[in-house]
């Protein structure tokens, strides 16, 4: 494994955090609830790290923890995107029922 360089990590973190602040500031308050579920789904990208651990079989403990981690993270992947979609589908503009 290449030596992790904490400086470059910090650069990425700071840039991402600022980018996040800018992008999210522009999300309409109407959509704050789906925003939360979507960001939850996105941060469930940790499933990727969990997959590696559950797959490497280095120790029994690691494999067990890794499997539980995959379960927990994937719950958020599946659930998060699905519920966000379900909520977003509901936001309609003009109702055809105007009579």
């Amino acid at each position, binding site marked *: 494994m290449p030596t992790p360089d904490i400086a470059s990590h910090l650069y990425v973190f700071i840039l991402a955090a600022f*980018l996040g602040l800018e992008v999210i500031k*522009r999300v309409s308050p109407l959509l704050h609830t*789906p925003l939360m579920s979507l960001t*939850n789904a996105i941060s469930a990208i940790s499933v990727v790290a*969990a997959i590696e651990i559950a797959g490497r079989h280095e120790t029994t403990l690691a494999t067990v923890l890794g499997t539980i*981690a995959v379960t927990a993270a994937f719950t958020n992947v*599946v659930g*998060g995107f699905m519920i966000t979609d379900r909520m977003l589908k509901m936001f309609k503009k003009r109702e055809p029922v105007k009579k």
Partner: protein
Amino acid sequence: MNMMWTVAELTGAGANIQAVFSTATYILAAACFVLSLKWLSAPTTARRGNIVGEVGMAAAIVGALLQNNIISYEWIIVGLVLGALIGAPLAIWMPMTAVPQRTAFSHACGALAATLVGTAHYFTHVPERKEEMAVLSVEVLLGALTFTGSLMATGKLQEILPQRPITFKGQNIFNFLVLGAAIACGVGLTINPHLTILFPVLLGLAAIFGVLLIVPIGGADMPTVIALLNSYAGLSASLMGFVLDNKLLIIAGALDGASGFILSIIMCKAMNRSFTNVLFGAFGQVQKSSGTQEKKTVRSGTPEEAAQIMEAAQSVIIIPGYGMAVAQAQHKVRDLFDQLTRRGVDVKFAIHPVAGRMPGHMNVLLAEAEIPYDRLIEMDEINGDFSQCDVALVIGANDVVNPAARHDKNSPIYGMPILDADKARTVFAIKRSMNPGFAGIENELYYADNCMMLFGDAKAVVSAVAKELAESAEPVAA
């Protein structure tokens, strides 16, 4: 030499392609995630945002599965299947009114994943470098406390746990001691990463702190707490990226953390309280009831009277609150909306940022009832309209319309931005009874001259008013 080089190249080439592919999918995922949030800015582009997020996630997962250091897939598959079995039903069958608890539960899952990965990482390669150990300690500390804290929040929202703030003497000091001890473990581990016993102790203390943190927080403060936990869960995922040298995790975690952070600031501003006050102020305690307890009387009315007045109005503003969610009244509210709109009444909804139990809660409920979203208007935009509106209808909302916030310095809600419902010509407030509810504060609005109470369950009352309007429908003149 050329021959040896070629053999090495050939056997290495396959491995290299896998690594390049994984990394490429990760970079693609990062771009997709940023785009996803950008497109969430408006309801018209929002669904596209969700889809591009799914694409990014799928790509990254494929990239992860194809890594060359994976020995076998059984456990991965078990995890994926279990995860889908838990996640999908929660998303499909859960009623919209339960979104806050589902959200809190998902924070718990996210934090759990980060904590477990960090723990597994520690026990397989004890980090030698101080910075890495320090970051790892912070990651699991944050992860563990967010895990238990979020479970507590889920319990409170689902009403399995008591919603009242639970306090005891010296609570804040005790909590800080626990946190301090957890941090001390982290410091110990950083100094000597091989003191393995400190690691589970750190986890245990952090987990206890998570419970203690949420225990004194009342139902009404949940929106801020959920946003904060969202931020922490994201932050721990990001820190995991530092430890595992995975920039995609750093980015995704930072995006999630930033989102939670912004939302919690919005919530705090909307309640006019600081973070520390929400977390450590035990809101329930501070209720020195605002002085004079003169026996004032409220005017109470019937749905028929309300219908008559609303019928004659030109503009009506409806103020939904947690009570509407509890009574599941949103569909009846839609009926009322339809009845009024058919008569040419202009109906708008005033949404206070902390109405409900999580940011945006009311919007989702009303959208579920198919009320067009351009009728849902934020507090800042709509507050000026109250003085021109004929009727303000308060459904299950309490503190957000309490004028005491403007002038009563003794009131715990003093300074909080509120909806100016009292400025409307007539105010109707739907409530089950005159019981003060959690905060225990009397709401001045109910005693105002222009306010009439409609007692009963929100669903029943709204339904009755809509029915009155329907029955008295005169043929609409062409």
